[in-house]
């Protein structure tokens, strides 16, 4: 019984610690983001930032375009067949 309560308490504290760490990091990140702006901030941070943009964005673009095309097809297909089934009820 005691170990059960202890485990629940430890997990709760862990989760609360995670939320607290997340909040602190969010605030620090918002404060630090000015240093990597292009002209106002540090030049090397801006270079690192552009590098990250290439990694996050440009190389992910084909994959995301493919995913979007596939799900656009699926949405149009399902929506069209569904609306065709509902058509007698609407009109």
């Amino acid at each position: 019984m005691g170990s059960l309560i202890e485990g629940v308490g430890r997990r709760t504290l862990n989760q609360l610690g995670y939320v607290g760490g997340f909040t602190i990091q969010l605030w620090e990140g918002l404060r630090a983001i000015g240093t990597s702006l292009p002209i106002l901030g540090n030049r090397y941070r801006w270079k690192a930032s552009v590098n990250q943009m290439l990694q996050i964005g440009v190389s992910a673009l084909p994959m995301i375009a493919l995913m979007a095309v596939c799900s656009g097809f699926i949405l149009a297909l399902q929506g069209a067949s569904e609306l065709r089934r509902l058509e007698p009820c609407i009109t």
Partner: protein
Amino acid sequence: MIDLVAVGFTRELGPLLTAIAVSGRSGSAFAAEIGSMRVTEEIDALRVMAFEPIEFVLAPKYLAALIVVPCLSIASNVCGILAGGLFMFFSTRLAPALYLQYVLSSIQLRDVASGLIKSLAFATIIVHVGCLEGFRVQGGPDAVGRSTTAAVVKSTFLVIVADVLFTAIFYFLGMH
């Protein structure tokens, strides 16, 4: 039908798809990068050299994600809507120009704006969850692997939770 594709993509599906893809692709990379820096004590070395790790490691990633994720979600909106037009052309011979005209008249600016606000929030969640998992690594190389898994799982989950929250907020603000 055309409304379904256009509004569904600009408001929900585009930002959500983009965020899930980016969290799988880049969130795990952030966690692995920072985690291995942590294991090899590079983070402590940065702190010794008076570089704040948040400013040195996290800020460029955060700025990049804040700029890139909305752009990617606009690209995915465009691709999805064009794919819907292609399907309409092949299934019902609807002229593409007519389709585009219909799409443009059915999208409203506030749909696109709510999608962009959502994707900013998703970018924040992905970067911060990935980096926090990386910074929390303690121990050896196996901890890096666990933190990578945790980053993907937590950021995908939090992205979907944030999507629900934003949809509820926009719904109750009357933006629907």
